[in-house]
């Protein structure tokens, strides 16, 4: 990159401007990715962190997509799941977003109903018995409740047995855990008698492909816990729109980079003709130009990503950004690759520049 690097230095104003644009676009893309991941976490962390690998939904219609708001499994269904070969554990899980109240005030929470002594509770949680409720830290803070206090969940008074170490969040509300028996009052939606408790889904821990085998027999729709994110209404809507925005931004940045290098290549076509007339091969010139684009892109994307990494740490905790490799390095790599593609299309015109033009008088 003999000429390319010297051009970078010589036309540093122009390249600095371009780099600044790339920095900002990268910041937007990676910040948006972090925000998307953060929001997704607020919508679904209680589901994705469940110590189970599949969830069986029982939807009202046979073609309905799994949804936590509509699914309802019977006691019979979860018992039958237990007998399916390859299923190591099958536990009912009730999921219902409701109102919780305490002496300090009220808050929206999602009640997760699990059997007493369930493995579905976060690791290290105190025992949960009938009449008790286990709070996630955010729920404890919002309700200003401590162990021993009484809180109401969906109208039922329960005693706080403790607080979990990790946050668990569902549909942007903190999660509280009750026994599936207590949960009936909150989420059973009036069907079934008291003797026939229901839950929302069956949480499965499977070995080999046990999950696939049970559906037909039990009449459920089973998905992995990761796929079950789409069954959370708030996640489905947010994620699509935010991901679409990111896609557009990445495409726009490729176009911007392409446009810049188009103009740049046109403005230096006289130089390219001279270089060709001096004996430069087209390959040499393409390598030079693409190398230059790679430098601009890498520097711009690097700084933009850094901005997100630093910015994400400075933001108050209420902004749900999640800065990690997938929300920074991955989109950054995408920006570099697509930017290079945009630049490649632009600098390809180098192949068409006629060295004969170098002889023309100017």
């Amino acid at each position, binding site marked *: 990159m*003999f*000429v390319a690097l*010297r*051009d970078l*230095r*010589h*036309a540093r104003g122009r390249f600095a401007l371009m780099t600044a644009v790339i920095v900002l676009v990268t910041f937007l893309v990676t910040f948006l990715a972090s925000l998307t991941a953060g929001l997704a976490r607020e919508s679904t962390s209680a589901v994705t962190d469940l110590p189970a690998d599949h969830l069986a939904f029982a939807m009202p219609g046979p073609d309905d997509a799994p949804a936590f708001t509509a699914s309802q499994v019977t006691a019979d269904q979860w018992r039958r799941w237990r007998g399916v070969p390859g299923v190591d554990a099958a536990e009912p899980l009730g999921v219902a977003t409701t109102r919780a109240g305490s002496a300090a005030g009220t808050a929206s929470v999602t009640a997760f109903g699990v059997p007493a002594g369930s493995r579905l509770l976060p690791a290290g949680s105190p025992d949960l018995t009938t009449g008790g409720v286990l709070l996630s830290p955010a729920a404890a803070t919002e309700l200003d409740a401590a162990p021993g206090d009484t809180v109401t969940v969906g109208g039922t008074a329960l005693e706080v047995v403790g607080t979990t170490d990790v946050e668990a969040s569902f549909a942007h509300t903190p999660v509280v855990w009750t026994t599936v028996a207590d949960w009936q009052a909150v989420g059973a939606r009036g069907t079934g008698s008291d003797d026939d408790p229901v839950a929302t889904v069956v949480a499965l821990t499977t070995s080999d492909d046990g999950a696939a085998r049970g559906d037909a027999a039990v009449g459920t729709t089973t998905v992995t816990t990761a796929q079950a994110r789409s069954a959370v209404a708030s996640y489905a809507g947010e994620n699509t729109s935010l991901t679409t925005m990111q896609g557009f931004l990445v495409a726009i940045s490729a176009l911007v980079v392409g446009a810049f290098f188009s103009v740049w290549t046109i403005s230096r076509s*006289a*130089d390219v003709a*001279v*270089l*060709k*007339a*001096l*004996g*430069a*091969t*087209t390959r*040499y010139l393409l390598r030079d130009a693409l190398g230059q684009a790679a430098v601009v892109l890498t520097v711009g994307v690097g700084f933009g990503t850094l901005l997100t990494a630093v910015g994400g740490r400075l933001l108050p905790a209420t902004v749900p950004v999640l800065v990690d490799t997938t929300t920074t390095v991955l989109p950054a790599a995408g920006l570099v690759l697509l930017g290079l593609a945009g630049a490649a299309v632009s600098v390809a015109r180098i192949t068409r520049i*006629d*060295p*004969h033009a*170098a*002889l*023309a*008088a*100017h």
Partner: protein
Amino acid sequence: MDLHLDRITLVYPDGTSTLTAVDDVSLTVPAGTTTALLGPSGSGKSSLLAVAAGLTPPTSGRVRLGDEVALTPTTSVAEATRWRRDHLGVVFQAPRLLDSLTALEQLELHAHLRGRRPATVRRRALELLDAVGVADRAHHRPAQLSGGQRQRVAIARALVGDPAVLLVDEPTSALDHDRGVRVVELITSLARETGAATLLVSHDASTLDPVDATARLADGLLESPARPQRTEAPGGRCVSAPAG
């Protein structure tokens, strides 16, 4: 080695018809000598130079270096590029230096284009910059050089690879008469030193005293075969009748 242009014809498409810019021109430039190609504007001088440089293939005829055929009507773009890279130095009508490179780097670029480290030609580059009288401007960019200095850097650039053939297009068009003569003198003496067969295009006969021979084009036709500018070339060698 001598440069031979054998019966070169170049026809440009010109709307529906064609335009014969160079018409069956044969010319030999002996190694180490400078032949001036004279003729009015539009007579085909640059076109002939473009053919010799491989910038456009001849419609018919061929370009030879010694006994080696270098360019024919079927020569590919890649082969023509290789011809320029390996054997040619070109000085364009305008200096055509790259804005972002210092004078020294303009010459070092020559090595880089050929896949060698720029430092390998630094000594030769500095020698040449000294020979053309801009050694003290070696680390300046074109914007910091005068027009004449730029032209001389361009001449040094063309010679840094010790080319067998040096092609020069109207080097004096932007210079006043005295400077023009000095540039032609410079090219002629450098050609002699380096042994480059030099073809120098000009429309201004008044600056051509120093050259070894002249040829004249009119409407693409060679009006007079190359004839010696002076009867005796320096060193007593007669250039009109190439020594066998």
